[in-house]
């Protein structure tokens, strides 16, 4: 039989189909874990952004006259 691009939502894999949506169980598991991993990586990168920003010195901390008043 020749290769084709068949795709059906019946749960049965046509092993002659080259359609990427037609997946065996292991391919489906790999795809789901792959997509979940990419989403997790995006979320972790976003949450790490505030932690990775450089420290900003505010005016109060840099002002030497304030330190003199405190004494």
């Amino acid at each position, binding site marked *: 039989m020749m290769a084709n691009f068949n795709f059906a939502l019946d749960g049965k894999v046509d092993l002659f189909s080259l359609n990427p949506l037609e997946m065996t169980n292991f391919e489906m598991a790999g795809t789901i874990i*792959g997509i979940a991993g990419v989403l997790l990586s995006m979320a972790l990168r976003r949450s790490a952004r505030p932690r990775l920003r450089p420290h900003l010195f505010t005016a109060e901390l840099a002002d030497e006259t304030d330190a003199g008043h405190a004494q």
Partner: protein
Amino acid sequence: MWRSIEHYGVTFCRFYLGGFNLVSGLNYFVLFWPQPKIAESAGNEFVIAAMQLKLFAFAKVVEMLGGLCLVTNRFVPLGLVLLMPVTVNIFLVNVPWAPFPHIQLSVTRNLVMHGILLAAYANYYYPMLKFRSAPLPVWRDPSRIVKSL
């Protein structure tokens, strides 16, 4: 933008290959899905011989370990080296002989993803390309194992 595509592309390949191998290895022992049927082909006898010699069980344990390394992002270069014989063997057994185009495409895709990951983590393999090397035995300084973690 290209850096992001590169980063997430490598991340997808790592999770896909890791997930595929981890689930394939687990399924051999736990059997939550039916085992794939081996097609009538020249590679068939090699797979049957491997099963009878218990090599298949050993290969599945290696698949699980390698898959776990990739999915958890721990010891990834080691995981890729562990999985290389599995990926190459599956490719060589199926692509020339398997009668199903879907299987041929699937194992080729796995090999390509494995190659992409090896290239992405190439920095850790450069020391292996040393042209001339003298032995550096582990027993001289065993603490290097812990230091490299």
